[in-house]
């Protein structure tokens, strides 16, 4: 009798361990197939083309283009600029990510106000297209294939990194969430979405070098500012301000951790 029960328990254990694992691997393969199928013909190219046009087109009260905008490698140098951002800019004495720097250039070069330059930070369909999205697509695509090389020499760059790291582990809100709640463990996912472990270099590299991305489910190109904004929404925090120092610090932390990896964006995601 005792042996019967044992036999039953052993068989049940074998089934419990083996069967779900098989399903898991199949699911993973199917997801990878889906992702591969997405790669051809990334609509992000439409944003890139529009962004290039916007970069060269005179605009704003001063009616000048952004071609004199210094993204860190000198006025007008776009190639490889994104792989070295965020960084400290002496002219503004502030650490800036790409999107903050673009706002800065549209204000200083083109004469826009902060409100005008940040009017539509993220696209919302054809009626509310975002110039920011398009410019980011164009500029980031010019860093495709380059090695991430975010500097951390200036004290303000170090400070931004340290603040970003603290923000990453900051738990708050009604669910006690921090970034680390979902992004500090290997091999996890929510439903079909893999969660990169951003506390490890490999995880940060994998995640950071694949943004911005064209989001199939939303039909929009999503920038890194958008990525962080939406993370905090799901974290049950208030809304992250576009181009705030907080957003830049967290970006600096993640970008610097991705150093050494090849930049792959704009990508395409589910």
């Amino acid at each position, binding site marked *: 009798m005792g*042996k*019967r*029960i*044992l*036999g*039953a*328990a*052993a*068989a*049940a*254990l*074998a*089934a419990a*361990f*083996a*069967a*779900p*694992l*098989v*399903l*898991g691997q*199949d699911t993973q393969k199917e997801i990878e197939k889906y992702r591969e199928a997405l790669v051809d013909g990334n609509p992000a190219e439409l944003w890139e083309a529009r962004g290039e046009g916007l970069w060269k087109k005179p605009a704003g009260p001063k009616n000048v283009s952004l071609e004199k905008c210094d993204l860190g490698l000198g006025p007008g140098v776009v190639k490889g600029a994104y792989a070295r951002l965020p960084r400290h800019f002496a002219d503004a004495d502030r650490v800036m990510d790409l999107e903050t720097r673009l706002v800065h250039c549209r204000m200083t070069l083109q004469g826009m106000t902060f409100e005008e330059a940040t009017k539509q930070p993220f696209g919302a369909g054809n009626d509310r297209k975002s110039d920011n999205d398009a410019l980011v697509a164009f500029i980031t695509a010019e860093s495709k294939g380059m090695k991430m090389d975010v500097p*951390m*020499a200036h*004290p303000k760059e*170090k*400070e931004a990194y*340290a*603040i970003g*790291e*603290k*923000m990453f*582990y*900051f*738990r*708050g*809100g*009604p*669910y*006690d969430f921090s970034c680390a709640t*979902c992004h500090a*463990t*290997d*091999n*996890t*996912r929510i*439903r*079909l979405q893999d969660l990169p472990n951003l506390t490890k270099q490999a995880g940060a590299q994998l995640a950071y070098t694949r943004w911005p991305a064209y989001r199939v489910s939303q039909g929009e190109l999503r920038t890194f500012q958008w990525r962080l904004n939406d993370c*905090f*929404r*799901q974290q*049950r925090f*208030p*809304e*992250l*301000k576009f181009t*705030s*120092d*907080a*957003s830049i610090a967290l970006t600096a932390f993640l970008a610097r951790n991705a150093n050494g990896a090849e930049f792959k964006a704009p990508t395409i995601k589910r």
Partner: protein
Amino acid sequence: MLNRNTKIALASAAAVAALAGCAGSMAPGPSDAEARAKALETMKAGFNEKGIAKLDRLNQDETQALCTQYATGNVPKDVAAKIEQANMAAIKPPADGKYLGDWKRGEQVAQRGTGFQYSDTKETPVGGNCYACHQLTKGDFVWHDRPVAVSIRQDPRLRTRDPEVRLGQGVEHAGLFGLLVHAAFRPRGHPLRAADQGRRRAADGSGVPGQQVTDVILPEPRAGGAGPRDPIAAGDVPEPMRRATDAEPAPAHAKYVAATRQSPVRPAIRWAGPGSLFPTYPSVAR
């Protein structure tokens, strides 16, 4: 050609440049406490209240503050105890004393990931978000799977930083170990060993490793059309357990197996719980 003075000047310039470079990269970052204070200040300035999410969500309670402070290291024992006590004390038991409610409503809460976001309203039901960490329904991979399926009991193994968790895990393993040791010492050829496994046994060819006994092969129908003969009654098999579990089938038994592989008579005996793992066989099953 460079003269000596030019060379020295160039060398000095290089040295100064190198020094300047060093000074830049050697500049100290903020201390831990400074960074923490500065991060809080930066965050308070970095968010807008929106919808139901007000800025007071950035004010940490004591638990959140302590968990943030020790996020990257081990929590001191006394601090851990303090956090645990405070939060255990905050749990409200059901007022009517009934702990078992409607599990279907419970599942809805567990499966729901909305609520409390600034994109939600006050009326949006607040989910437990349980699915984000736990596989809730076995095998339902679209909604509840992870690369390696993790049950609620196994989940702490992913988060091994906490010594308490490791201890619990050890206890669990010890129980499992005992079972496996017991299983391993069962003698070879014993009927209970790998009952349904191996070539031509019940689980063979199913494509699912470790599958339970669901299909038991019955003997061939008796010549003359009187229906399948009952091997127990006929005395072909000395004890019921040998029927499906025989490690070395007797020649007579092997014949049944071969015959029924081609026979249209393929009875199904479903395994319906531990007590029925080795059921007695019906004499006729279709």
